[in-house]
């Protein structure tokens, strides 16, 4: 093998670092949207590498639904501390109160949709001109057509018609006042790429990504953890199962998968052999309509 050859993970990493540096140079007030999941943990790792030996030159912003896994919050605080980054937390609960929004009801009350309000308020509060997100194009088909630099209007809306052509490695981040750019440095990574990179770089993850015992109920074939946010009905059978999480979102809308995979190698093997997509397996909210993501994006969602 040629000694000046980069494997595909090195190539993806280099592309993402290049994007991070373009953000730092082109925007006055960027922010990194941090959810606590593996994709945003990977983003932080890449940002660190992009600006080393300096620190990450923008804050991490957590739009907190209040429905977090405690393990993910602990991990977040530890990571922020270790990286020496600034953390900004804005709570969906506060937005609900201040704007007298209607709290979602039902057994799995997802605040996922309401995050958009908090996000847009936060953008305005801090005058962020760019928000870096961990979306990947392999996640679903609206993402597949979004640019790496995605311009949003003052309502945060994505307009698929007005996307700028994105050629070579040249990114045009120029915007008018009030507009905002969402930048997705890991657009070209797949779920498996992320896992392989986590192994390759020995990136630390919250413990819930690995098999552990948990009290769950079954809902339309998916396992949902019992927590202060999700209570079993009388008709539910509460089971203790060995599970892990494939994505980490809200406790109310993220399903667990049954698994014995306790190590990265085992998790990766399971993901390679699984025949269901990440969103399909673990997101309770995405099944509502096929165009759910497209709609949310157009309304200012990540």
């Amino acid at each position: 093998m040629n000694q000046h050859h980069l494997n595909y993970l090195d190539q993806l990493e280099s592309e993402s670092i290049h994007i991070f540096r373009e953000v730092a140079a082109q925007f006055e007030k960027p922010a990194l949207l941090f959810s606590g999941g593996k994709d945003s943990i990977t983003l932080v790792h890449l940002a660190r590498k992009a600006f080393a030996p300096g620190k990450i030159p923008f804050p991490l912003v957590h739009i907190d639904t209040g429905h977090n896994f405690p393990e993910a919050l602990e991990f977040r605080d530890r990571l922020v501390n270790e990286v020496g980054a600034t953390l900004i937390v804005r709570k969906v609960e506060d937005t609900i109160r201040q704007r007298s929004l209607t709290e979602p009801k039902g057994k799995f009350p997802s605040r996922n949709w309401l995050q958009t309000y908090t996000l847009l308020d936060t953008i305005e509060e801090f005058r962020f001109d760019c928000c870096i997100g961990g979306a990947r194009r392999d996640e679903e088909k609206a993402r597949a057509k979004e640019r790496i630099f995605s311009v949003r209007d003052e309502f945060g809306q994505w307009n698929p018609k007005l996307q700028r052509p994105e050629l070579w490695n040249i990114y045009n981040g120029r915007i008018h006042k009030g507009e905002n750019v969402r930048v997705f440095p890991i657009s070209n990574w797949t779920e498996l790429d992320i896992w392989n990179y986590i192994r390759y770089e020995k990136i630390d993850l919250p413990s819930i990504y690995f098999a552990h015992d948990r009290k769950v109920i079954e809902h339309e074939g998916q396992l949902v953890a019992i927590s202060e946010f999700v209570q079993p009905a009388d008709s539910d059978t509460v089971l203790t199962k060995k599970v892990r999480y494939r994505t980490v979102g809200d406790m109310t809308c993220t399903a667990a998968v049954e698994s014995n995979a306790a190590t990265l190698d085992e998790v990766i093997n399971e993901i390679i052999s699984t025949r269901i997509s990440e969103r399909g397996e673990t997101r309770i909210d995405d099944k509502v309509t096929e165009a759910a993501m497209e709609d949310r994006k157009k309304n200012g969602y990540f």
Partner: protein
Amino acid sequence: MDLLRFITAGSVDDGKSTLIGRLLYDSKNILIDQLEALEKSTKNKENGEVDLALLTDGLRAEREQGITIDVAYRYFSTPKRKFIIADAPGHVQYTRNMITGASNANLIIILIDARQGVVEQTRRHSIIASLLKIPHIVVAVNKMDLVEYSQDVFNNIVIDYREVAKQLGLADVTYIPISALDGDNIVDRSKHITWYNGKALLEFLEDVKLDSDINLTDARFQVQVVIRPQTEDLHDYRGYAGKIISGIYKKGDKVKVLPQGIETTIASVEIAGMEVEEVFAPQSAVIQLADDIDIGRGDSIVKIGNLPLVSNELEVLLCWLDDKPLISGNKYLLQHNSRQVRAMVRNVEYKLDVNSLQQQPVEGNVKLNEVVKATIKTASPLVYDGYEKLSENGSAILIDETSNSTVAAVLIRS
């Protein structure tokens, strides 16, 4: 395992969507829930097979508004390679879509309908491939099932295409007879096309050599951002961060900073804060210089003895990407990697017919999808190479300062 980016070119009727669907499906990169969604929306179920073309179906907004977004990206991988497909829709605005999708591609699959042979579209796709210097070309002769897997039909198409390739100077062309609908020669070799001894399409995509696509000879580096931690222990640290465009850099290299023209030496090369022996394309690296020079974003660091061109007057091919036409005398921003300069388009000499390569006179303003030869004058000099020699350092975009849109793709000539 490495990475191959490719684009598929063909009109809707050539079976492009079916081909992409087939590649994803047969390489087991479609998952059950995606397949279920597919089965639900499959209209044509006569033979019990799902319509693979629906996998690349558009968004609701596209259907409702009758638009097509220029490029969608698809991903799949095999144990040998990760693949990124730029899927550019056909028909209207094709030149713009294809240039956008092809700008990063190592390879292009040009689909030809076996019943139609080489048609005007084939010629157009090939011309764009030659303009953009896509290194590898696969001519996939599709729908072989509809011509009874005839070797004669295939051979005649190959003879016709060789003529096109010769005219355009396309060197690396591979011909594969396929049937995307039935999966012949896509992932597995066809049982029907017994006279063909070459590789199936996926086998070829896995094996095509990519190392020589990266130029390791002409060292080019442009500063994206200056890293200055200004902490106590890194008080004097000043690192120039950027992606190596081409070539190799190491400590001790005698370099020249352009366009300033100052000579100095490399003090260290780093990846992610760690000093390394050397850095090479396409790594994202940090370079430290021996002397304290005023360098900023967009400045180039190159090696003495192998210099790029420096000029504020450029001969270019422009592909116009915007609905609003090019107005001569208007000022634009030209972005060349990370360097932005004010620019004016002057002397639009001729229009290039992308179906015939003929030069035609330009009447009125340059419009969407037109490719023209022009001169660009920039407010400060650009450090570049001809696109033909080093595409990564010979490409740029034009931005309309009032709308902030990306309005043109620029291929700089040496």
